[in-house]
């Protein structure tokens, strides 16, 4: 239904959109996720023919938006970030205008009435748009996109500025529309995307960094065998005992939650339930478990992980296991450094601060070099690919 190939948009020197490709099938709801300024709106503006792309193509329902814009536009209902409302008109007059503008062939009154009922603006039809609340204005914007019953709906942050009740209403509506339309929806609110969309594209700095279903995305990054446990007891001892437990691959004691209380991030070998042995251990050693929960990543964490770290981003793109490998490496080296630190602490308690700083520097440079390495790997791989393609 929608096919986007190698879309590029430059604003002067700035690359707003850099080589984005994706497809959306009929009856699918695609979520566009990304921080502000990632290129979501730019991509949508290109798809709807508001601006042109520097290169690449966008095909709507088999029609290229650059080559035959008028036909392609007739397939699209677009709700821009700021709804294009003539604030001096009444809702009814405005929808009437949009009906004419889109050259609709449907029965006028019945169709407008139907759209109004769908987005629940029937009771404000006679009112001037200027006097409506933000929520109603947004709904009129949505009604405007729905006029003419276009097969493709492109909605740029449709729930922005609405109250929680309205957000739920609009979401339910979009889900309903998704059954009969192809919908592209952008948002920087993750729960929204998670609740509504079948497919998610995470976009950052103009590039697609992930393209998958919501479940797959969270599964990829999170692991069932990771636990966060809050234990009361001397940190060193608890750490040592847990680490000695069978199947535990790494332990990170980071958060101090009170006197002698720490949160431990425990990772065991996959498919191994360490909750029971852990419980027994803690009981035997006389510590107390105050909390235990699986370290399930929400989409929010996935999003942050993907958009924050260049390294993670690169490895995500290649979609191989390298990411996990690098992360594990890092974890291990982090552990090693920690142990070094501990030994050093025992030897020279006074130089603690300086040592710690040095260690942190070490870790940072380590991370950087690894990131560069993986970047190089990726780029060399890409080069090979592109060279191969040229040949």
């Amino acid at each position, binding site marked *: 239904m929608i096919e986007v190939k190698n879309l590029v948009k430059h604003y002067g020197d700035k690359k707003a959109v850099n080589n984005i490709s994706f497809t959306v099938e009929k009856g699918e709801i695609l979520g566009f996720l990304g921080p502000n300024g990632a290129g979501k709106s730019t991509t949508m*503006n290109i798809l*709807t*023919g*508001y*601006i*042109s792309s520097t290169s690449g193509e966008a095909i709507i329902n088999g029609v290229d938006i650059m080559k035959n814009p*008028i*036909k392609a*536009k*007739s397939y*699209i209902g*677009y709700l*821009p970030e*700021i709804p*294009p*409302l*003539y*604030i*001096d*008109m009444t809702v009814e*007059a405005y929808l009437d*205008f*949009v009906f*004419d*503008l*889109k*050259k609709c062939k449907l029965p006028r009154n019945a169709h407008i009435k139907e759209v109004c009922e769908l987005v629940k603006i029937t009771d404000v039809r006679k009112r001037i748009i200027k006097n409506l609340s933000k929520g109603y204005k947004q709904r009129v914007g949505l009604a*405007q996109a729905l006029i003419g019953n276009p097969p493709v709906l492109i909605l740029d942050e449709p729930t922005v500025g609405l109250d929680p009740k309205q957000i739920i209403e609009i979401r339910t509506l979009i889900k309903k529309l998704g059954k009969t339309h192809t919908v592209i929806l952008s948002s920087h609110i993750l729960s929204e995307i998670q609740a509504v969309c079948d497919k998610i594209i995470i976009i950052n700095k103009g590039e697609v960094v992930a393209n998958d279903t919501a479940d797959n995305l969270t599964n990829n990054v999170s692991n069932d065998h990771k636990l966060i446990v809050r234990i009361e007891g001397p940190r060193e001892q608890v750490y040592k005992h847990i680490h000695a437990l069978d199947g535990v691959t790494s332990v990170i004691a980071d958060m101090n939650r009170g006197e002698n209380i720490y949160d431990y991030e425990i990772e065991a070998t996959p498919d191994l339930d360490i909750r029971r042995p852990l419980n027994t251990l803690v009981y035997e050693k006389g510590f107390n478990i105050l909390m235990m929960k699986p370290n399930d990543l929400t989409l929010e964490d996935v999003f942050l992980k993907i958009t924050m770290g260049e390294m993670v981003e690169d490895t995500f793109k290649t979609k191989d296991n390298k990411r996990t490998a690098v992360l594990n490496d890092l974890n291990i080296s982090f552990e090693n450094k920690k142990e070094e630190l501990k030994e050093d602490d025992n030897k020279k308690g006074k130089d603690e601060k300086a040592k710690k700083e040095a260690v942190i520097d070490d870790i940072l440079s380590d991370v950087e070099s690894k990131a560069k390495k993986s970047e190089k790997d990726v780029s060399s791989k890409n080069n090979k690919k592109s060279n191969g393609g040229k040949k």
Partner: protein
Amino acid sequence: MGAIFRREMGAYFSSPIAYIFLAVFYAFSGFFFFTTSIMYSISDMSGMFGSLFLIIVFLIPEMTMKLFSEEKKQKTEQGLLTAPVSLNAIVAGKYLAALTLYTIGISIIFLYALIIEYFGNADWSVILSNYLALFLVGGVFIAITTFISSLTENQMIAAIGGFISLMFIYMIDYIAEIIPWKPVSDVVSKLSFIDKYSEFTMGLFNIGSIVFFLSAIVIFNFLTVRVFEKRRWS
């Protein structure tokens, strides 16, 4: 195009702009009609037509200032530009709406002609050629000020820019006079609107002038389309 034309007409008449334009135009034209024709009991209306040229220099920028600048400011142009209509249709719809309002305004002169007809004999061929000239000059002025409105999102700037441009056209003869180099001065004076306009007010029907006005209308509307085309591609 039809949808945009109807919306613009609706916008004119649901805001004070149309009423102010019509009221001011009627007041001034009535005043000049009275002082140049009625007071001296003559059937010649050229005095009034000569004055109307300056009136439209002042009035047309206020009429067209909102056409595109407001769309840009309120972000409604995004709705127009993503609708299945061509840029030509968008510009034409808006241009014709302004031209229609203007035509409603200048058609008042037929009422004045009827008054003269009642008391004496109106020279209808002169009146018609005057009306045509006023229509064409107004058409060019609307095209120019609409173009200026498409360049900015501030309607005050659009109005002032439009007014300055029309004032420049009004004064083009004086400017041509002070240009010392004769070839340039000749070319500039050829662009004079007033010369061509006053020919009509004397009842001279010059095809060359009509072509001049019509091509100016086409050029400036074309430039307006280019402004949007350029924005899309930049």
